[in-house]
């Protein structure tokens, strides 16, 4: 299979007034096309930094990040980003929220894009709320709107930064299934950052385990659990085995301050 996303020896330092923080150290991994991959690691290890680098919001100190064989550019249009919270603009209607990215890119008059936005709204049961304000929607519906807002831009790679973390447990399981279903139906490649091991196992075809800061790749695990939805995958007999292995990997990690260099 083609290397869809490739991290090659990526190193990143954050600069602050007081310190230089070594966030990533020679991080290398690959994701294939149409794969749903997750990054797990200890809190503060640099998971979100990996997403920001992939989105072109940050520039790697050294190393290379390629998407479909080409280096990532600043604010790369091939990337769609979904955040921890839905970040819907409360003063805009659902339709206006979905059209936000297209407006920014001056594509909001394109009939094909409008048709795609309408189709996605209908397909995922949100068309009736088109002219409503976000406050009238449930947490799960809001996350679906946020995903559609990203999908109408037709990105090649979707970056998901703990998109379920702000939801309660029950809603979280439901939204997890919804988002997985949408991503698979729309044939997208996704890279998820999460601190929830169960979530990562139930959603992913591949899991990249990171060490504590400066993060390095400890292990890459390929999964093939039975079940058509993340919830169903939790019933697989190997689920517990994978959970234990990843859990052990993460709990062996010890927090250090070696990554912080004072001038």
């Amino acid at each position: 299979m083609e290397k869809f996303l490739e991290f090659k020896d990526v190193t990143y330092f954050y600069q602050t007034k007081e310190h230089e923080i070594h966030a990533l150290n020679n991080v290398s991994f690959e994701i294939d096309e149409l794969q749903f991959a997750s990054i797990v690691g200890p809190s503060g290890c640099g998971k979100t930094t990996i997403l920001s680098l992939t989105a072109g919001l940050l520039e790697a100190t050294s190393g290379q990040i390629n998407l479909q064989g080409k280096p990532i550019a600043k604010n790369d249009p091939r990337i769609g980003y979904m955040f921890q919270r839905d970040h819907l603009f409360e003063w805009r209607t659902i339709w206006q929220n979905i059209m936000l990215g297209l407006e920014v890119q001056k594509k909001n008059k394109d009939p094909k894009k409008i048709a795609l936005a309408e189709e996605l709204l209908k397909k995922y049961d949100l068309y009736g709320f088109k002219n409503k304000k976000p406050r009238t929607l449930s947490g799960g519906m809001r996350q679906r709107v946020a995903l559609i807002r990203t999908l109408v831009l037709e990105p090649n790679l979707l970056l998901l930064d703990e998109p379920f973390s702000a939801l309660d447990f029950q809603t979280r399981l439901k939204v997890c299934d919804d988002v997985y279903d949408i991503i698979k139906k729309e044939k997208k490649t996704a890279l998820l950052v999460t601190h929830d091991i169960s979530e990562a196992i139930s959603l992913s075809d591949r899991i990249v385990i990171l060490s504590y800061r400066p993060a390095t790749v400890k292990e890459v695990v390929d999964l093939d659990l039975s079940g058509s939805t993340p919830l169903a995958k939790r019933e697989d007999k190997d689920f517990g085995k994978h959970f234990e292995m990843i859990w052990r990997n993460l709990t062996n990690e010890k927090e250090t301050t070696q990554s912080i260099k004072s001038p």
Partner: protein
Amino acid sequence: MKKKQHNLSKAHEKYLKRLRKDKIIVIFWQITLFVLFLGLWELLAATGAIDPFFFSSPSRIATTLADLAVNGNLFLHIWTSLYETIIGFVIAIVLGVAIAIMLWWSEKLRRIMEPYLIILNSLPKIALGPMIIFWVGSGTSATVVMCVLICLVITIISMLNAFISCDQDKMLLMKSMRANKWQILTKLVLPSALPEFISVLKINVGMAWVGTVMGEYLSSKAGLGYLINYGSQMLKLDVVMTSIALLCLLAAGMYGLVSLLERRQQK
């Protein structure tokens, strides 16, 4: 609306009824307190418990109001103060928001200007009064400048704070969509600062009237501030009290308009 209410459950109807009742009670007491205040004031003045020469009375204010209206000067004074306040208010808001945008746009400029803003904010603007008359002349222009000076700095500081505290994750979202700075400003920063803008308008309604009265005190030939000054110098304290009452009404009217705008924005 009536049709909708037919479908309400009894408990909901009861709840709505209680809300309506509460509202009526609040309005009733607001009016009652006002009437009681006027009645007590009139009574104290009539019985000689307070000297009506110094404290005036509602009936004396009404007579003065009628006298001023018959002389034809009342509306000139009201109109002069009103348009000076509105012009000063509008200039301060437009200029203040524009400067706040410039300071949000350039962090370096913001850091350079910070100490100047702090000094200007703490300076009692009335101290500039005599200078303003020398710079722009007396009358309306001096009053408008005083009004602008009083409202401007607070507008800049409040709006700048609102712009800076805009959600950083939403900014990141806009950047991930490849938005430029102008798009971030118009589609995110300005709309999300709207509640702060409304509260700046509310604060400035009061501040603008302070500026106008101060400006008219300093140099003017018309306006409610002029009337207050004239009344106090001529010991016509009924004129002073009448002007204060009119100022209350006008400021409340302007505040009401801003509240209307706020309710429309919240819909």
